[in-house]
């Protein structure tokens, strides 16, 4: 995902001398070419993230498009108030880009886990929140990103996430992508964990169930319409995310369903709040929260009776 982001950013900077990249001292082996070529549009802001966001806001106030890059906790949690007041309140074209979605940096421990980011950010005004599932989605979103007048946040994995789409599908920011259409179950997923939804969907189809899979590459604005349309006739909704379910995709789905006076069972797969003290591989971490192919499959099968 990171490579796709950098390639597209270079394409943008190629055409637009008013696009900038600020990095919080991160990007080893990623930004070398860009730094060389656009030495005035690339700034390593050092280990000072609050200032980095404020500077981005100041540049945006004087007509610039500014990408701001770091690991998610450092680009979201540390400068939280600068994002709220300077960027979102003022509706400025600042493009936050965070690497390390969910447990991408699982071994690094709790300080580096990014499991609350879009839950927190969805409460801010004017912000578009992007959560691409693979590098093809990153590319498609980057091609549209500068047409957003206001701020955005893009949640990236690291590198080497599997490609989940056959080819670059037509993806429109703000509109959920339907990957499969079925009658029995609705899967709603965001981010690279979409891969699990696709795998489980195939398993369920092999035992006679048909599944609709909706890919929410955009968390905000939340596409209520596609969700409500796809609910029709379903027995069960399952959400997939590498994020706290309490503030994440599950809560968005549940809220949409409830506020439309509908009643349907929802099973969330994501991060529970209790056990914050693990570290290990990404698969190990997810399994601790019941998010493994086998555990998901069993739980869904049981729910279907």
């Amino acid at each position: 995902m990171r490579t796709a982001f950098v390639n597209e950013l270079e394409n943008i900077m190629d055409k637009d001398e008013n696009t900038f990249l600020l990095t919080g001292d991160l990007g080893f082996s990623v930004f070398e070419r860009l730094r060389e070529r656009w030495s005035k549009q690339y700034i390593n802001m050092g280990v000072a993230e609050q200032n980095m966001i404020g500077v981005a806001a100041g540049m945006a106030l004087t007509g610039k498009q500014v990408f701001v890059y770091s690991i998610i906790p450092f680009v979201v949690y540390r400068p939280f108030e600068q994002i709220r007041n300077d960027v979102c309140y003022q509706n400025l074209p600042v493009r936050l880009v965070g690497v390390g979605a969910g447990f991408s940096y699982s071994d690094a421990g709790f300080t580096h886990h990014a499991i609350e980011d879009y839950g927190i950010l969805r409460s801010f005004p004017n912000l578009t929140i992007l959560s691409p599932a693979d590098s093809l989605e990153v590319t498609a979103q980057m091609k549209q990103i500068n047409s957003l007048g206001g701020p955005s946040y893009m949640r990236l994995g690291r590198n080497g996430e599997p490609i989940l789409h056959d080819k670059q599908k037509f993806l429109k920011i703000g509109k959920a992508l339907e990957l499969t259409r079925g009658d029995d179950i609705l899967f709603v997923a965001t981010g690279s964990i979409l891969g699990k939804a696709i795998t489980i969907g195939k398993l369920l189809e092999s035992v006679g169930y048909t599944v609709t899979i909706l890919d929410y590459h955009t968390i905000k604005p939340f596409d209520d319409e596609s969700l409500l349309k796809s609910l029709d006739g379903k027995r069960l909704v399952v959400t997939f995310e590498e994020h706290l379910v309490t503030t994440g995709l599950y809560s968005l789905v549940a809220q949409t369903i409830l506020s439309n006076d509908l009643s349907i069972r929802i099973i969330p797969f994501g991060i529970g709040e209790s056990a914050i003290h693990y570290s290990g591989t990404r698969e190990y971490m997810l399994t601790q929260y019941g998010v493994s192919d086998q555990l998901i499959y069993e739980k869904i099968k049981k729910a279907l009776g």
Partner: protein
Amino acid sequence: MVRLHNRTHTSHIGSEFSSLDIMVELYFDVMDITPQNFSSLDRDYFIISKGHAAPALYDVLFRRGFITKDAFESYGKEGSQLAEHPKREVFGVDTATGSLGHGLSIAAGMAYSLKYSNMKGKVYCLLSDGECQEGSTIEAANFAGRMKLDNLIAVIDNNRLQGYERTSNIQNIASVKNKFEASSWSVSEMNGHDFQDMRSKFLNTPFKTGEPSLLIANTLKGKGVLEMEDKLEWHYKSPSDVEVENFIKQLGGST
């Protein structure tokens, strides 16, 4: 402003009176910002990082023709755009502020951006002495010095009081000065109530090519009203009905 605070019972009149003269000097004598050029990018900029002094800015914007008398007097009324802290919906306001420690970063971003685009505008940023305790202010100072932003002029309203303390009991101004100097700023002092002194200092910026300038403006909280001057409680109090006439008389106004 005395009447405004009397009517709305809002806080911070002391902080407004310590920085009002600085804003008057900038808007009427120094800066290239007018209602006519405000919509252009190629001009000077003013960031009121101590956003709680916004009513003083509103008064200046009114007298400089940015906002109407009606708009100015709508301050504190329901539905008014003029809140206790400023936002860009008010014509003439360059950025929203209100939380301390944000303004200098925004100002530095603007200054870098103007330089990059070969625009000759300067960015003026008004800080409180208290807000230099914010780590982010020092982050911004580092950045501006390192990027040689000599089109950035920061002014510290050194009224020696903050919300709940003598500022020097928390952090001495000498420590602030040292930090800016160590970050490659050139620093000077001025009397923040002496227009001639301020004028000569501002016209001398940048003090040094390739360095941002810091002016420590020595001021009095509540300047001009004996009962308010250098008194911590006027960070919060507003003039009572009984006080209004006396205060206005001291300020040379007519009641």
